[in-house]
C-alpha cells in the first residue's frame, strides 16, 4: 500500500457525506498512521495553522462583511432602481434589470449567495407582480448571481490565488470581461425568450432626467468597485487593504448616508461574516495540509501522467477537464472544489502551456456556474428559500440559462484573449 491511496479514500469519505474539512484531514492522516509515518501528523497540524495565518486571506472576511453591510444598507435598492431606469421599458424589462443589477452588485460583492438573497428577495416578488412566473424569476436570479464571483472582487479567486500562488490582482483583472460576457449572454437569451413568450414591460421609458437621478442614487455604492479595483490594479493597495477600505466605506454609507443600518445591528452582521469566513479559513488550512501530503505522495505526478495519456491535444484535455469540473460543480461548492482540485489539476495544464491565470479563470467560471446547477447548486437552494418555489421547479426553469453559461465557459476556454487581455494591458501578466 502506498500513500497514493489517500486520494480514493478522500473521495469515498466526501461522497458518503463527511464534511470536507474532516475528510481532508482524515484521508491523509489515516494513511500516514497506517504507513507508520506518525511523525508527519504534527506536520499536518502545523500546515493547517500556517495555511490560515495569512494576510492575503484576510480579504475573505472583509469582502464578506462589506457585501453584507452594503446589502443591509439599502444599497441593493438603489442599484435596482438605477438598472430599472435604464432597462425597465424594454420587453422583458425586469428580467434584464435582474441580470444588470447582478452585474452591478458583482462589483461590490464577491459571493453568488449574497447576490441571490439580496436581489432575489427584492426582484422575485416584483417580477411576479409584473406577470412573470415565479419559477422563471427565481431561475434568472440564480443564473445571474453567478456573475458575482466572476466580476471582481471575488472570494473564490482570492482562495484560488492563495492556494495556487497566483496574483490576486491578475485574477481580478482577468475576471472582468468573462463576468460581463456571462451577463451579456444571459441578456441575449432573455431577449430571445422575451420576444417568443411576450414578456411584460416593467415601466414606461424613463426620461434622461429620471435616469440622472437614479444614477446619482447609485453613484456612491458604485464608487466601491472603482475604489477597490482601482486601488488593487493600480498597485496602491493590497487586496486585503482594499477590502478593509471597502468595509469602512460600506459602514459610512449605510450608517450615515442611507441611514438604513443601526449601530446595534453591527455585532450580528460582523459575526455573520466571521462565521462564514471561519468555515472557509479552516477549509483553506486543511487544503494546505492536504497539499503537503499530495506533494509527499507524488500523486499529482501520477495523475498528470494519466491525464496526459488521454490525449496529446491540449484542446481535447481542456474539453474533458471542463466536463469534469462541471460534474464536480453539480455536487460541490466552488470554494472547496477549487481547494481540492486546483493543486492537482493546475500544474498539469500549466506544464502544457496554459497560462496559470487563464486556467484559474476557466476553473473559477466553470465551478461558479456549478453553484447554479442542480441537484446540489447552492444558489438554487438560496433562490428556493427566497422565492418559496421548489428547488426542482427552479432547476428546470434554469436550464436555458445554464446552456448559455456553458457556451460562455467554452468561449472562455478556447479564446484565452477574453480573460487575458485586461491583465496583459495592465502589465499584470506577460
Amino acid at each position, binding site marked *: 500500500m502506498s500513500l497514493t491511496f489517500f486520494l480514493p479514500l478522500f473521495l469515498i*469519505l*466526501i*461522497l*458518503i*457525506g*463527511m*464534511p*470536507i*474539512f*474532516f475528510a481532508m*484531514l*482524515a484521508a491523509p*492522516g489515516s494513511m500516514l498512521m497506517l504507513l507508520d509515518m506518525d511523525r508527519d*501528523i*504534527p506536520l499536518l*497540524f*502545523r500546515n493547517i*495553522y500556517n495555511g*490560515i*495565518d*495569512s*494576510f492575503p*486571506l*484576510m480579504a475573505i*472576511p*472583509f469582502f464578506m*462583511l462589506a457585501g453584507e453591510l452594503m446589502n443591509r444598507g439599502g444599497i441593493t435598492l438603489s442599484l435596482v432602481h438605477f438598472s430599472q431606469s435604464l432597462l425597465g421599458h424594454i420587453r422583458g424589462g425586469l428580467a434584464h434589470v435582474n441580470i444588470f443589477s447582478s452585474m452591478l452588485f458583482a462589483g461590490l460583492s464577491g459571493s453568488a449567495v449574497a447576490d441571490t438573497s439580496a436581489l432575489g428577495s427584492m426582484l422575485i416578488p416584483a417580477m411576479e407582480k409584473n406577470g412573470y412566473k415565479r419559477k422563471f424569476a427565481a431561475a434568472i436570479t440564480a443564473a445571474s448571481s453567478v456573475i458575482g464571483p466572476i466580476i471582481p472582487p471575488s472570494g473564490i479567486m482570492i482562495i484560488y490565488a492563495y492556494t495556487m500562488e497566483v496574483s490576486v490582482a491578475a485574477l481580478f483583472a482577468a475576471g472582468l470581461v468573462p463576468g460581463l460576457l456571462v451577463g451579456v449572454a444571459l441578456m441575449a437569451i432573455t431577449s430571445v425568450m422575451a420576444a417568443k413568450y411576450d414578456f411584460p414591460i416593467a415601466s414606461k421609458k424613463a426620461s434622461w432626467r429620471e435616469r440622472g437621478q437614479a444614477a446619482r442614487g447609485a453613484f456612491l455604492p458604485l464608487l466601491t468597485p472603482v475604489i477597490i479595483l482601482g486601488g488593487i490594479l493600480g498597485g*496602491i*493597495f493590497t487586496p*486585503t*487593504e482594499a477590502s*478593509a*477600505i471597502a*468595509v*469602512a466605506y460600506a459602514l459610512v454609507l449605510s450608517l450615515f448616508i442611507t441611514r438604513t443600518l443601526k449601530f446595534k445591528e*453591527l*455585532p*450580528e452582521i*460582523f*459575526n455573520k*461574516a*466571521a*462565521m*462564514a*469566513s*471561519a*468555515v472557509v*479559513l*479552516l*477549509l483553506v488550512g486543511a487544503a494546505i495540509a492536504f497539499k503537503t501530503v499530495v506533494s509527499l505522495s507524488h500523486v499529482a505526478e501520477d495523475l498528470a501522467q494519466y491525464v496526459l495519456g488521454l490525449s496529446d491535444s491540449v484542446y481535447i484535455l481542456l474539453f474533458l477537464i471542463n466536463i469534469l469540473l462541471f460534474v464536480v460543480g453539480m*455536487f*460541490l*461548492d466552488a*470554494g*472547496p472544489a477549487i481547494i481540492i482540485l486546483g493543486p492537482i489539476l493546475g500544474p498539469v495544464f500549466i506544464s502544457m502551456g496554459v497560462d496559470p491565470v487563464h486556467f484559474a479563470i476557466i476553473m473559477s467560471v466553470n465551478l461558479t456556474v456549478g453553484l447554479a446547477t442542480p*441537484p*446540489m447548486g447552492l444558489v438554487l437552494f438560496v433562490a428556493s428559500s427566497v422565492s418559496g418555489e421548489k428547488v426542482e421547479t427552479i432547476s428546470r426553469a434554469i436550464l436555458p440559462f445554464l446552456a448559455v453559461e456553458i457556451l460562455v465557459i467554452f468561449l472562455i476556454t478556447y479564446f484565452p484573449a477574453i480573460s487575458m487581455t485586461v491583465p496583459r494591458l495592465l502589465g499584470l501578466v506577460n
Partner: protein
Amino acid sequence: MRAVDKALGALGWINDQAARIGLGIAWVLVAVMVATILLQVFMRYVLNNALPWPEEVARALMIWMMALVAAPALRRGDFVAITLLPDSLPNVLSRLLRLILTCVAVAILVVLSDISIDFFQRGFRTRAASFNLPRAWVYLAMAVCYFTMLFVTVEMALKHLKALFVGEKPS
C-alpha cells in the same frame, strides 16, 4: 439512555456558553482587525510612516476570530458536506452513517486537540516578530478552536446515537 440525556444536557449547556462567549468577542475582533488595517493604510499613505506591527496583529486577531466562531458554525451545520447519500438512505441506515461520520470527526478532533496543547507549550519558545509576546498566545487559539469543536462533535455524536435508538429525527 438517561446517562446520554444527562450528558447531552451538560454538553448542550457548555456549547451554548462557548458560543455565547465566542460570538460576544468575535465581532469585536473583526472590528479591531478592520481598524488595524485602516490604520496601516493611513500611516503609510498619509503620514509616510509604515508601522511594523499591524499586519501581524491583524493576522493574530483573525486566527482568534476563527477559533471563537468555528464551533458555533460547526454546530449550526455550516461545514460544507455532500449530504446526498445520507439524505437518501433509509432512516436507520442514514442515522448509523451520520453517527459513524461524526465519530470519525471526534477522532480527528481528539488528535488535533492533543497536538494543539503541545503546539501551545512550544509557542513560549518563540516571540512574535513585531510585538512583545510569546507566540503561544496566538497558538492558544488553535487549542480553543479544536477543543470547542470537539465538544460540539461529541454532542452531535450523542444526538445521532440517541436518534438511532429512540428513533427521533436527528437535528
